[in-house]
C-alpha cells in the first residue's frame, strides 16, 4: 500500500575508504601507525630487527592468538638461519609467503592494513619494502554453540546459532553440502564494519531476489549495525507497516529449510538471529517441528494455531461487541451469568477490557525485564492473583479476566514472535471499533487489516501468498502440512520455478501388499 511504502531509499554509496601508500620508508609508516592508533593502548606496535632489517609488528591485543604467532612466525623470522640477507628475507616472506600459517596476504595500502589490524589480523612491515604481510591469526572469546532457548522442539535438532558469523555459516554448511550454496559477504556500518553475509542456493533461489537484497543493503549508510534489526528496518519495502517482513530464527535447521525452499538468509555478525527473506504471513505460523512430527498431528496443530491467531486478535473485541450490542447471540443462561458478574463493575465493557489488557501486557513486559531470580514470581501467578483481587474489588468482571487470559495464552501459541506482537498491537484499535460499532466495527477493522495485508509485499512476494493471489498447488503446506511424499515440488511463490524436490523411485513395500 502506498500509504506504508517507502519509495526512495537514500542513494549514498558505501564509503570505500581512500587508499594511502606511504612507500618504503619504515619510519614514516611507523609514525603513521602510532598517530593513527594514538590513545588506543590495546593496539600494540612492536619493533624488532632481523638480518639488519628493522621490522614492525602491529596487532590488537586480545584479538590475536599470540602463542601461535610466536611459535609459527616470530620464531622463524628472528632465527639466524632463516634468511641470509635482507633480499633473501623479502623473497621468502613477501614473495613466497613461506610462513607456516594459512591465508596470509600482502597489502601495500596502509589504510587497508590498519583495517586488518582492527579485524584482529597481524601486520608485519619491513624497512626497505613497501609491502606489508597480513597474518590472520584472529582469535577471540566466543560463546559455544548451545541449545535453543526461544524456539524449542520436542523432536528435532537442538543446536542454535551463536553471535559469531563464521560459526553460523559453518552450521549451515554442515547441513547443506553443495557447491551451489553461496555465501556472499558485504560490510555495513561506518564504525562497526559489520559483516553481513547473504546465503542462498543458486538455481533454487531467484536471481532477482539476491540482486534486490544486495542493492538495498548497499544503499545503506549507517554508523553501526549491532543486530539484524538495524538492517531489517532499513531494507524492508513497507517500513510503516506493523507486520514483520522478515522472519527471524535461531535455529540452523529452519534457516537451512528456508534455503532449500529458495529463500535467502541474511547473517549479521554479532547476532545469533539471522533474517530469512522473503516471508509470507503463513510462515510465521509454522514451526520447525511441524516437519519433524507426523503430518496428522501437525495438521491439527496448524489448524489450532490459525484458530488461536483469530482468538488472539478478536476475542476481546468479540466479547465487547456481544455484551454491548448483541446480547442475543449467546444463550440466555450464559447471558444472565455474564450480566450478573458485570453488575457491580462500574466501567463499560470497553474500558474494562482495556484495563485488563494493559495490565496483562504490563505483566508480560515486566516478566521479561525482571532479573531471572525474581521473574518467576511475577509471571502467570502474579497475573492470576491480581486478576482475582481485581474481580473481588469489583474493578473488573470475572468473565473479562478469563477472556484476557485466553487471549494472552493464544498469542503465545503463534510461533513467530514478531507476528504475535503485531497481533497484540492490532487488538486495541479493533477493541475500540467493536466498542463503538459492535460486530459491524469488528468487521470494518478486519477488512482494513486484511486490505493492508493483501497489499503487503516482502521482497516482491505477496504477503498472503499462496492464498491471495491463489496458488492451489502451494496450499498443501499452509493450513495443513501434507506428508513429505506428497510435497513433491518446491513452493513456487518464493523459489525459482517449481521444480522437483522429491521423487520416490521405487514403489514402497507396503504398496505391494494391497
Amino acid at each position: 500500500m502506498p500509504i506504508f511504502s517507502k519509495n526512495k531509499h537514500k542513494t549514498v554509496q558505501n564509503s570505500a575508504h581512500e587508499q594511502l601508500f606511504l612507500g618504503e620508508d619504515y619510519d614514516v609508516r611507523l609514525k603513521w601507525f602510532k598517530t593513527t592508533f594514538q590513545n588506543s593502548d590495546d593496539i600494540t606496535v612492536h619493533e624488532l630487527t632481523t638480518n639488519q632489517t628493522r621490522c614492525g609488528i602491529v596487532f590488537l591485543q586480545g584479538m590475536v592468538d599470540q602463542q601461535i604467532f610466536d611459535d609459527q612466525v616470530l620464531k622463524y623470522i628472528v632465527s639466524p638461519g632463516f634468511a641470509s640477507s635482507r633480499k633473501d628475507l623479502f623473497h621468502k616472506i613477501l614473495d613466497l609467503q613461506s610462513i607456516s600459517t594459512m591465508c596470509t596476504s600482502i597489502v601495500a595500502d596502509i589504510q587497508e592494513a590498519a583495517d586488518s589490524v582492527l579485524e584482529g589480523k597481524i601486520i608485519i612491515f619491513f624497512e626497505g619494502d613497501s609491502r606489508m604481510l597480513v597474518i590472520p591469526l584472529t582469535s577471540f572469546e566466543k560463546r559455544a554453540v548451545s541449545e535453543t532457548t526461544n524456539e524449542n522442539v520436542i523432536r528435532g535438532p537442538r543446536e542454535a546459532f551463536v553471535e559469531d558469523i563464521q560459526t553460523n555459516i559453518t552450521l549451515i554448511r554442515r547441513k547443506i553440502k553443495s557447491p551451489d550454496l553461496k555465501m556472499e559477504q558485504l560490510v555495513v556500518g561506518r564504525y562497526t564494519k559489520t559483516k553481513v553475509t547473504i546465503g542462498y542456493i543458486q538455481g533454487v533461489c531467484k536471481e532477482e531476489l539476491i540482486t534486490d537484497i544486495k542493492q538495498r543493503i548497499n544503499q545503506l549508510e549507517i554508523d553501526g549495525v549491532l543486530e539484524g534489526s538495524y538492517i531489517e528496518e532499513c531494507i524492508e519495502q513497507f517500513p510503516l507497516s506493523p507486520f514483520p517482513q522478515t522472519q527471524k530464527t535461531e535455529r540452523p535447521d529452519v534457516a537451512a529449510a528456508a534455503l532449500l525452499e529458495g529463500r535467502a538468509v541474511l547473517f549479521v555478525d554479532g547476532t545469533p538471529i539471522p533474517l530469512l527473506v522473503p516471508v509470507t504471513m503463513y510462515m510465521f505460523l509454522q514451526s520447525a517441528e511441524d516437519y519433524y512430527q507426523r503430518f496428522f498431528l501437525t495438521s491439527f496443530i496448524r489448524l489450532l494455531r490459525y484458530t488461536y491467531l483469530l482468538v488472539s486478535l478478536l476475542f476481546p473485541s468479540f466479547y465487547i461487541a456481544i455484551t454491548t450490542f448483541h446480547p442475543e447471540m449467546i444463550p440466555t443462561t450464559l447471558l444472565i451469568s455474564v450480566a450478573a458478574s458485570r453488575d457491580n463493575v462500574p466501567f463499560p465493557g470497553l474500558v474494562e477490557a482495556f484495563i485488563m489488557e494493559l495490565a496483562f501486557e504490563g505483566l508480560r513486559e515486566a516478566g521479561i525485564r525482571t532479573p531471572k531470580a525474581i521473574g518467576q514470581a511475577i509471571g502467570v501467578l502474579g497475573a492470576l492473583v491480581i486478576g482475582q483481587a481485581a474481580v473481588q474489588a469489583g474493578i473488573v468482571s470475572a468473565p473479562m479476566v478469563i477472556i484476557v487470559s485466553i487471549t494472552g495464552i493464544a498469542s503465545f501459541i503463534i510461533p513467530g514472535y514478531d507476528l504475535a506482537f503485531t497481533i497484540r498491537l492490532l487488538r486495541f484499535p479493533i477493541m475500540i471499533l467493536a466498542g463503538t460499532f459492535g460486530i459491524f466495527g469488528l468487521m470494518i477493522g478486519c477488512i482494513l487489516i486484511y486490505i493492508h495485508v493483501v497489499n503487503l509485499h516482502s521482497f516482491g512476494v505477496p504477503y498472503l501468498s499462496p492464498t491471495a493471489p491463489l496458488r492451489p498447488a502451494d496450499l498443501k503446506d499452509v493450513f495443513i502440512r501434507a506428508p513429505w511424499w506428497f510435497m513433491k515440488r518446491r513452493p513456487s511463490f518464493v523459489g525459482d520455478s517449481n521444480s522437483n524436490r522429491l521423487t520416490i523411485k521405487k514403489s514402497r513395500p507396503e504398496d505391494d501388499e494391497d
Partner: protein
Amino acid sequence: MKAAQISQNQLLLFLILYFYSTLVGFSASNLIHISQYDTILVLCISGLTAGIYAYFTIKLANRRPNEFFFHYGKDIFPQWIHILFMGFYFFSFLHTSAFVLREYEDFIVQTYLGGTPNWAVGGLLGMVVAVTARSGIQTLFRTAQGLFFLILIADVSNTIFIGKELKWDRWMAFITNHSGHGIFAGTYTTIPFFGEVIVLVFIFPYLTQKNKTLKTVFWAIVLGLLLIIVNFVFLLLLFGPNLASHITYPMLEMVRYIRIADFIENLDPFLISIWSTTVYLKISLLFFLSVQILAQFFRLKDHRPLTFSLAAVMVALSLQMSGGSAALTSFYTNSWATYSYFIEGIPILYLLMDTLKRFIKKRSAKNNKGM
C-alpha cells in the same frame, strides 16, 4: 497507467460475490413480492440475459483489449458525445455506490445499531472503501479471492443448518404456481442486477488471459445463480411468498432461524457481518471505477489523490439522496430498473456504432479496391 494483473480465477470469484451481494440481501423481498414462486424462473432468465450482455460487452472490449474504454471510446463516437457518456458513467457509478452504501447504512442501523447515526456507519465504511480504492483494483480482486471462501463457508453452513426448518411440502408450488405478468415484471427488475457485468468493459485491460474471459463470466453467472437460487428457494420454503415479501430483510430473518444444538441461539450478527463484506466489495468496485474515470478524464498519472475526496462525496450523497427508507424503496421499485437499462445499454450502443463504422470502412475499402 500501469496495468495491474487480475487473473481469471480472481475475476470468477469476484463476480460470484458481486452478483450474490445485494440481490439476496436487499432485493429479495421486492423480487418475491413481484414474482412469488416464479422467482427461480425469473432468476434463470435474468442470468441468461446477463450472458448475452456479457457476450456483447466482451466483444466490444476484445476489439481493443489493452486500451481503456475511456481512451478508445472517442474513436467510436464523436468526442463530445463520448465525454458526455463518460460523465454519465462517472456519475452513475458514484451514485450506485452511494445507493448501495445507503441501503447498507439503513440495514445496519435498523437491525443492529439502533441509535447510531447513518453518517457514522457510512463514514466508516466509506473510509474503508476509499482505502481499498486507493490501493488499486488488484488489491480489490485479491481481497475478494480471500473472502470468497469465508463467505462460501458461511453460506453453506447457513443452508445446512436451516435445512431442517424448511417446510418441504411447499415445493409443489414451484411447479404449479405461475403468473405471466409476475415473470415479466420480475425479470424486468432483475436483469439490471446481472447486467452490471458491463463493468467488464472498464476493467478489461487489467485482466490476464483475456481470451478466457467469456468462459469465466459464464461460469460466474452459473455459479452465482446457483448460490442465489439456493437462498431464494430456502426463503420461499421457509416463509412462503406472502410473508417473505412483507419482511424488509427476509435473508436476515432466515439467518435468525438458525439454532445449533440449542446452545447458540443467534448467529446472525456473525453471518451478516461476513455477508457484509460482499457489499463492501461491490461498493468498492463501483467507486473505484468512478474514480478511475475521473482520473482518466483529467489525464492524471494515477487515481490515488482523488479517492478520499470522492469518498467524501459518496458518503454525503448516500446520506443526502433520500429522506428515508420508504423513499429509497420507492425509488428502487419504481425507476431504478429502467435507469439501469439505460446505463447498461451504452456499451451495446458503442458496439453497434463500432461495427457499423467497421462495416462502412470495409465497404469503402472494397469499393476503392474495385475502382
